[in-house]
């Protein structure tokens, strides 16, 4: 069979900045060369992109994978018998194998391509949930969930008469209390769905421990890995979850594609999500039969170029080393938290140490939107708002926060510049 010509990530990586320092300490600032977008001025100032929790920037290797696919191999998958279709199919399925390896899944059949984290969770809620969640059952979430890990369960609860229960956090520090978990794991809980890393608080949850304790009671588990997938090694067997959802665009990949991992036996018992082409074995006017997982969950023409570019993104991240990225992430998070904590009239959210590389804060007397507007004029891209965490904001008693979120191409020098801008903002608003 024809080899997919588009996939030479190892070879490509050797030409990029990342792989030149496999064994040496990573010169993080040097990696910026791989990201064309970072080299620009905004409002006359060098761009300082600190909105990585919303979406990361893309390295040249990923951008090239996209254009190479469209320039050389584009065809629909699983349908044609011609050369281009063979290539596209092989590359698409190679991306599935790569994703399985990236997550240490037992098999590529446990990898479903979705539009992103949101669709992954909705798939589980709509397909698995509709079959297995009944009136009176409880779905256990945490108070720090993103709307995409709340609303699908609310819709399911409305349809089935199930009830949502939330594991509490301990105020601004944003930590769950593992000591409380047992009292919440009652016999009517059927599912525990929780985030690995909070996009507002930077909390890193001990998901392996939570999954193990849930599993001992026969509770199915889902992990929202949107914020962790590109920032640290992920091993679904070590975490022990039944489902795990991620978005490519937060981990150097393109928008419009993500992965839902599902434990083999869970996927087998789960009915299809959407109906259409690609997912069927045979269709009669009144009845159809469908393929095995993962194909029964992938109706219609998939995001082929997205999967291929995600493949390149995973290669890029592993070229640097996700353990190193995680270490750098911790350092940036701790550094920024410490520097900001030294300012007067600032409220910081999330744990001071052991936090992910993002910091949410509020300045006394200055609204988050005003912080973001002034920072933007200084070339610093921040986020201000509720970060799709409205229930969490209510719990914290705030309407919004300002957030700086880092990625491996950020440096402590950049954080110094960011903190300097925060100082100026305080001065500007006279606080």
């Amino acid at each position, binding site marked *: 069979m024809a080899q997919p010509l588009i996939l030479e990530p190892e070879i490509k990586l050797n030409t990029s900045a990342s792989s030149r320092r496999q064994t040496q300490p990573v010169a993080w600032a040097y990696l910026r060369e791989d990201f064309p977008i970072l080299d620009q001025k905004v409002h006359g100032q060098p761009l300082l992109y600190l909105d990585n929790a919303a979406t990361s920037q893309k390295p040249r290797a990923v951008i090239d994978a996209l254009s190479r696919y469209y320039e050389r191999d584009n065809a629909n998958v699983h349908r044609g018998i011609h050369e281009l279709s063979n290539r596209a199919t092989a590359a698409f399925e190679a991306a599935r194998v790569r994703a399985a390896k990236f997550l240490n899944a037992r098999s590529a059949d446990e990898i479903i391509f979705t539009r992103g984290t949101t669709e992954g969770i909705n798939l589980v809620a709509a397909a698995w949930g509709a079959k297995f969640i009944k009136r009176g059952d409880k779905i256990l979430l945490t108070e720090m969930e993103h709307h995409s890990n709340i609303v699908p369960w609310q819709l399911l609860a409305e349809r089935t008469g199930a009830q949502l229960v939330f594991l509490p956090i301990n105020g601004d520090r944003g930590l769950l209390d593992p000591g409380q978990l047992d009292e919440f794991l009652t016999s009517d809980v059927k599912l525990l769905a929780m985030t690995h890393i909070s996009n507002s608080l930077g909390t890193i949850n001990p998901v392996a421990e939570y999954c193990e304790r849930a599993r001992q009671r026969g509770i199915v588990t889902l992990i929202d890995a949107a914020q962790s997938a590109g920032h640290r090694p992920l091993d679904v067997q070590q975490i022990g979850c039944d489902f795990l959802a991620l978005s490519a665009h937060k981990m150097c990949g393109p928008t419009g594609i993500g992965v839902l991992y599902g434990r083999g036996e869970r996927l087998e018992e789960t009915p299809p999500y959407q109906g259409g082409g690609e997912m069927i074995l045979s269709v009669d006017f009144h009845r159809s039969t469908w393929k095995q997982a993962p194909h029964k969950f992938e109706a219609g023409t998939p995001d082929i170029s997205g999967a291929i570019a995600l493949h390149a993104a995973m290669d890029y991240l592993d070229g640097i080393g996700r353990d190193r990225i995680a270490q750098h992430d911790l350092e940036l998070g701790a550094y920024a938290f410490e520097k900001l904590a030294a300012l007067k009239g600032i409220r910081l959210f999330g744990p001071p140490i052991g936090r992910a590389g993002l910091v949410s804060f509020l300045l006394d007397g200055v609204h988050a939107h005003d912080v973001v507007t002034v920072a933007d004029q200084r070339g610093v891209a921040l986020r201000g708002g509720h970060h799709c965490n409205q229930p969490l904001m209510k719990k914290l008693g705030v309407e*919004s926060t300002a957030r700086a979120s880092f990625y491996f191409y950020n440096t402590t020098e950049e954080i110094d510049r960011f903190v300097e801008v925060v100082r100026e903002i305080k001065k500007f608003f006279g606080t």
Partner: protein
Amino acid sequence: MFDDLTDLYQQLILDHSKGPRNFRVLPDANRTAQGTNPICGDNYTLYAKVDGDMVKEISFQGSGCAISKASASLLTESLKGRTIAEAKNLFNKVHDLVTTGNLDGDVGKLAALAGVHKFPARVKCAILPWHALMAAVEGKGETVSTETEKELS
């Protein structure tokens, strides 16, 4: 280099956001409306006492960014003692001002909102209290939201 910023946050705006005028509940209000921006959590209630077609008293309460708060404060200052027709007219002028920067006639202190038009993401903040005002004087007494901006603008 920061001309745009000082255009947006003119001294008058900063002053009104820190010390908003008519910032209270109006106990004998016969018109109220709420304005919210669900994206950033801005949330204001406007209170008006309307007698015939005259806005006798007007006040507001709530929280939000410097731009929305200053805009609400300036609104209450400029509308007291005006007719509903004048209020609608002023709404249109302010709408033009914050979306295009064009000033059509004299709007007094409200001219301080002109800098907003260079910040597309902040237009909603400036105009939110005005939408709430229109809902209030038209007696709709409902919540207006920036996220139905199509209807609103």
